[in-house]
């Protein structure tokens, strides 16, 4: 039996780290349980010659392929999009691209503006100070003045344009379309003890330099110095409840498989849009036979990914290839609704640099471009370091049949039932993807690219996991209220992407963290006036 804490946070990723840091100034006893380990800078693949090979091994983005002890398996079923993630201190920020856009103001009002899905119970203006605070702690690089966004300050200058960016910029200008350097969670100058980016290549396998703002190098050092305790290799099986219906703590397994009970006054769930519903559905009791906090029946439902429509082509002269961050430019030309396109809502276009030698070879083999035999060498030399790629990151609308359930057979190494994904693409999304591919081809044509092709949706691109414990004011139509507290369990909060009402069409980490800071702020204010558990 462990000593009772005031706040128990489950999960140390994007949102868990932010909420821990924010609550630290209350001087409450705060403990975070994390199923994975710390990742040391020397662990990252870019330290070694085998760095690309490890993207298909212990640093694979798909947990079923990576299969570390600290991962849990996921039954992706027949889903056209597979879940990708990382389990460790920092969560999936360890392996994200650090592309760091905010949701737009319109994203919070989709019902009002476009007549689909639901409005959020919060808005951009409410979150704006938390976006700013998050940008400051995270350290965001970019260029102010993007006409696609309300003005916001950025602490560091943008990532370099490079040869690839020049190609894209000239093509976009030719078409008269919007493009802009991305807000990137990558240090371009020394920042808060972190060294600046030295262009190790793609950021996905983690940053040996420490320039990428994964939360193990941003929020956590500050939170730990302020007294928060972080316990690794602690895999939570269930949240427990008392006779009064309040959460009493959590049962977890340590690295040796030994069971522990950690009592707490308050539980905050931060396990992402798959891990959170899995945990809630596994937390069954007489009071909550369908899973804790699930009186609405919506835990696990309304799963949203961002379907990625990837389009590519090859230019004649070598460009940046793998040097530099993969993502440093975006276009919001097709973000806001234009009904003449045949769908509502929209997408961001991410403009990519290329890939490393091995990934280039493997991808082009999959595309059927790279032959066997004598011709292999000649063909490879016409495509290596010449790829321009674009991804339309499409807004996914919430549909209840897209969901996370518990697999009746598959379990993790501790015997905890694994999540099962049931997901199909909506008609609106399919039209949006087709539009994104068509516009991307026009951009590639303007850039002089040849051998143009597309993968839509990308299979291994279920990075963004949203909607499975949605927020709202109506307990019958949502799982948590407008400040993240469970409608059913008044001392349980959810702070990760599962509380999103709609998905927007941007990478979600910035908004996930701003929301976590907003919820933490609400917790602190309501603690002060003794209304937190009312």
């Amino acid at each position, binding site marked *: 039996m462990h000593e009772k804490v005031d706040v128990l946070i489950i999960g140390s990723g994007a949102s868990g780290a932010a909420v821990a840091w924010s609550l630290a100034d209350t001087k409450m006893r705060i403990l975070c349980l994390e199923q994975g380990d710390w990742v040391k800078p020397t662990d990252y693949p870019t330290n070694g010659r085998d760095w690309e090979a490890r993207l298909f091994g212990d640093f694979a983005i798909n947990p079923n392929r990576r299969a570390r002890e600290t991962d849990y398996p996921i039954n992706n079923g027949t889903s056209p999009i597979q879940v990708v993630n990382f389990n460790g201190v920092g969560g999936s920020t360890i392996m994200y691209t650090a592309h760091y856009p905010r949701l737009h103001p319109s994203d919070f009002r989709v019902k009002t503006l476009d007549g689909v899905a639901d409005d959020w119970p919060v808005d951009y203006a409410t979150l704006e100070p938390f976006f700013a605070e998050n940008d400051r702690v995270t350290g965001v690089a970019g260029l102010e003045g993007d006409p696609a966004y309300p003005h916001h300050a950025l602490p560091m200058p943008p990532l370099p344009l490079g040869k690839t960016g020049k190609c894209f910029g000239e093509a976009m200008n030719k078409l008269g379309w919007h493009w802009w350097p991305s807000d990137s969670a990558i240090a371009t100058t020394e920042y808060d003890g972190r060294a600046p980016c030295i262009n190790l290549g793609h950021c996905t396998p983690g940053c040996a330099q420490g320039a990428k703002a994964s939360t193990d190098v941003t929020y956590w050092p500050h939170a730990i110095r302020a007294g928060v305790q972080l316990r690794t290799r602690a895999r939570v099986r269930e949240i427990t409840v008392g006779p009064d219906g309040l959460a009493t703590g959590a049962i977890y397994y340590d690295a040796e498989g030994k069971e522990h009970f950690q009592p707490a006054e308050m539980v905050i769930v931060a396990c992402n849009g798959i891990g959170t519903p899995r945990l809630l559905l596994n937390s069954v009791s007489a009071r909550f036979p369908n899973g804790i906090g699930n009186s609405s029946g919506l835990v696990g439902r309304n799963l949203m990914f961002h379907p990625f429509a990837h389009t590519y082509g090859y230019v004649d002269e070598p460009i940046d290839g793998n040097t530099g961050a993969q993502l440093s430019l975006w276009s919001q030309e097709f973000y*806001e609704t234009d009904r003449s396109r045949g769908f509502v809502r929209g997408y961001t276009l991410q403009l990519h640099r290329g890939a490393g030698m091995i990934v280039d070879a493997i991808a082009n083999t999959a595309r059927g471009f790279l032959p066997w035999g004598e011709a292999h060498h000649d063909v490879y030399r016409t495509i290596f370091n010449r790829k321009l790629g674009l991804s339309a990151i499409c807004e996914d609308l919430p549909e209840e049949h897209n969901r996370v359930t518990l697999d009746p057979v598959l379990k993790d190494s501790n015997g905890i039932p694994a999540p099962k994904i049931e997901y199909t693409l909506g008609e609106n999304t399919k039209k949006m993807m087709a539009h994104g591919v068509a516009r991307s081809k026009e951009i590639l044509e303007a850039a002089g690219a040849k051998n143009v092709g597309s993968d839509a949706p990308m299979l291994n691109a279920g990075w963004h996991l949203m909607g499975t414990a949605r927020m709202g004011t109506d307990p019958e139509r949502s799982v948590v209220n407008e400040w993240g507290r469970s409608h059913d369990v008044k001392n349980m909060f959810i702070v990760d992407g599962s509380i999103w009402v709609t998905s927007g069409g941007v990478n979600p980490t910035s908004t996930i963290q701003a929301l976590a800071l907003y919820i933490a702020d609400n917790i602190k204010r309501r603690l002060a006036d003794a209304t937190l558990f009312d």
Partner: protein
Amino acid sequence: MTYETLTDAETRDLRALAGLMIPASATHGVPGADDDLIFPDILRSLERDTADAKTALQQLVTLSGGAFSDLTAERRGEVAARFKQEGGAPLFALNRVVLLCYYRDDRVMRSLGQEPRSPFPKGHVVEQGDWSLLDPVRTRPPMWRRV
């Protein structure tokens, strides 16, 4: 984690296949994937793809009507062409391991103008570029919807 190893017969077939996938090239001054340094790396690197590799190599034997490595060069080409069409996911996994070992060989990397080194700690140089290219975008009115 421990993985199965290939039998001697499977190893011979894989070496013959690797050399057919990526043969040595005098024109480009590069070895083939069946090279004395590269091929052992392929064997060591099968790891979690070993099961797929064995499945693929069994299919290759079936298509060959015996050991692939015993076929004439002409016949190997015919069988390989069919194998490429029919090999599916196991062949793709096997092909991936061949590629990831081939394209990290020092000689191959140098032939493509790449430094054979880890990305860290030296990093790379990406040109800063001319941000005046953004001038047409800077003049655009706000695009985001006010709500």
